[in-house]
């Protein structure tokens, strides 16, 4: 599904050029559950931004289902993020003035879904993540774990091909982190492709495959036996 070849990303820091990604080759098939690990500054977040269509590579090839995402213009990238990708962030990134339901509706609004089916879909998703009774709650009326589940429901709104999660358990305690990971596993079992960026070895260990980054290069790529 994802084919990345010789991907580089170079940032200019004043006069210096810093290579966040220095030639990455990666293949991710449909239905995979990949944990991307590495110390901070290793390029794993940059990779996630490029895979998610938030950023463009300096050079290299990024094919998503046969489409050259690296060549998309801004609008194409926006639609790509809207329909193909679901994002889950460490800090949830829910809009505080909106209810859980309205937050989940957001991607559907940008997809142009009419109000009626939109509300029904958002409700269904919240039920699926176990928050069917909390649809009218504002984020500040929900616990951290519940907020992250709203964020996951939102990420699933347009039935994306790929769910990208950046330290999804980073802001959660042990128990709720486990719940979120359990939810990811259920989603993966239902066929969703998952890429999680984490530096938590325990989280990485629960993925089916681990890709390790150091200095913008892949230094490790192995399948976890247990999964």
């Amino acid at each position, binding site marked *: 599904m994802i084919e990345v070849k010789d991907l580089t990303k170079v940032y200019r820091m004043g006069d210096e050029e810093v290579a966040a990604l220095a030639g990455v080759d990666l293949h991710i098939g449909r239905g995979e559950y990949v944990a991307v690990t590495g110390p901070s500054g290793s390029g794993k977040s940059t990779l996630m931004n490029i895979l998610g269509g938030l950023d463009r590579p300096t050079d290299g090839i990024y094919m998503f289902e046969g489409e050259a995402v690296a060549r998309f213009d801004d609008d194409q990238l926006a639609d790509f993020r809207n329909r193909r990708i679901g994002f889950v962030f460490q800090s949830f*990134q829910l809009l505080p003035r909106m209810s859980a339901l309205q937050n989940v509706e957001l991607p559907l609004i940008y997809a142009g879904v009419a109000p009626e089916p939109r509300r029904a879909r958002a409700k269904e998703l919240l039920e699926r993540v176990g928050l069917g009774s909390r649809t009218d709650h504002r984020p500040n009326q929900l616990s951290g774990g519940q907020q992250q589940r709203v964020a996951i429901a939102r990420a699933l709104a347009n039935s994306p091909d790929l769910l990208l999660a950046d330290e999804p358990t980073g802001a959660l305690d042990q128990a709720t982190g486990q719940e979120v990971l359990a939810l990811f596993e259920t989603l993966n079992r239902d066929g969703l492709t998952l890429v999680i960026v984490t530096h938590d070895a325990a989280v990485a260990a629960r993925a089916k495959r681990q890709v390790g980054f150091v200095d913008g290069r892949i230094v490790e790529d192995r399948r976890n036996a247990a999964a």
Partner: protein
Amino acid sequence: MRRRELIRFAAAAIAAHPTRSALTALGVVIGVAAVVMMTSIGLGAQQRVTNAISGLGTNLIVVSPSFARAGAGPARGAAGTQISISSGDADAIRAQVEGVSAVSAAVRGQSQVVAEGANWNTRVEGVGADYLIARDLGVGSGRMFDDVEARQGRKVALLGATVAKELFPDGDSLGKRIRVGSVPFEVIGVLATKGQSGFGQDQDDLLIAPLQAVRSRVVGGRRFRGDAVQQIYVKAQDETQLDRVQEDVTNLLRDRHRIRPGDDDDFQVQNLASILQASQAATQTFTVLLGAVAAVSLVVGGVGIMNIMLVAVSERTREIGLRMALGARRSDVLYQFALEAVTLSVAGGIIGLVIGWSGALLMATLGNWPAAVAAWAAPLSIGFSLIVGLVFGAYPSWRAAQLDPIEALRRE
């Protein structure tokens, strides 16, 4: 349907900060209210002047003595003090100028009028028999004096409606004796009611009588030597003759007054249409000026909107980043913020319009100032506030749309 959602986002953002939104819109409220009120005042003035001038009569030419004789020429000692036009001039115009339907000389003064104990101070006009025709005035009851009575200077008078009411509260005034100053007159008619003039003057507060009867004895004095008059009213038969009649009158009077070619006239001939035009142009300039001053405050209101929108963009950077991550195009973000600015300014414009209108009406009723509220003020001020919102919302919205989603998401 995506547009409708964007409007909802904008409305929600405005509702999220009610005080801030209200204060932001206030600039436009004040601006639009000022524009509406100022142009209403200007238009009111314009209407008032127009009414006042056209109330004098149609196709009318007014000849008056010219006192301003500054500059070259032999210094005629009496030029500034002595009135230069006479009833002889009026007769000459009637006899020699073609296309004239009525000519009347006039003198006027203020005098006490007494009848059966009642007492009233009013404007007394000494005029010719054709005066009513020239001025488009009518007789309410009784009759106007005729040419013979006018020439003989008979002591007959017509009362304005106000004077009639003050002197004869019980009604019938015809045939009654009154005294104008110390001179006895007989009332032969009451003028048709004319109401207030554009300048707020009661046009029914006057008395008219034959010129010969009034001159010297009532409104006379040193300035009215011989047969001098203050005004000669000349009514042209129709509008197309107006310019020619004016020219003929001028030439005739120059001839009669023996003014050599090149010298200035010692009288002035004014055509009401041209007076009207000139004063309309003047009040129009006044209106535009007032409107322009008020428009400046509208621009200031726009700057306020831009300021707050820039604050909003920087406050909501993370929200913008998130929306982009979830699939908002740059144009969606642009429209959302532009709509917010436009909604604020148009709402301010509508409120300002209502306030401006109310203010103008209030001035009209309380201040006795005829503020003409123009109907076009509504679409104009809403259109203007729309433009203000677009212009001053453009830059903040553009800034929002140009944000890098990754940077924006990282912002605390």
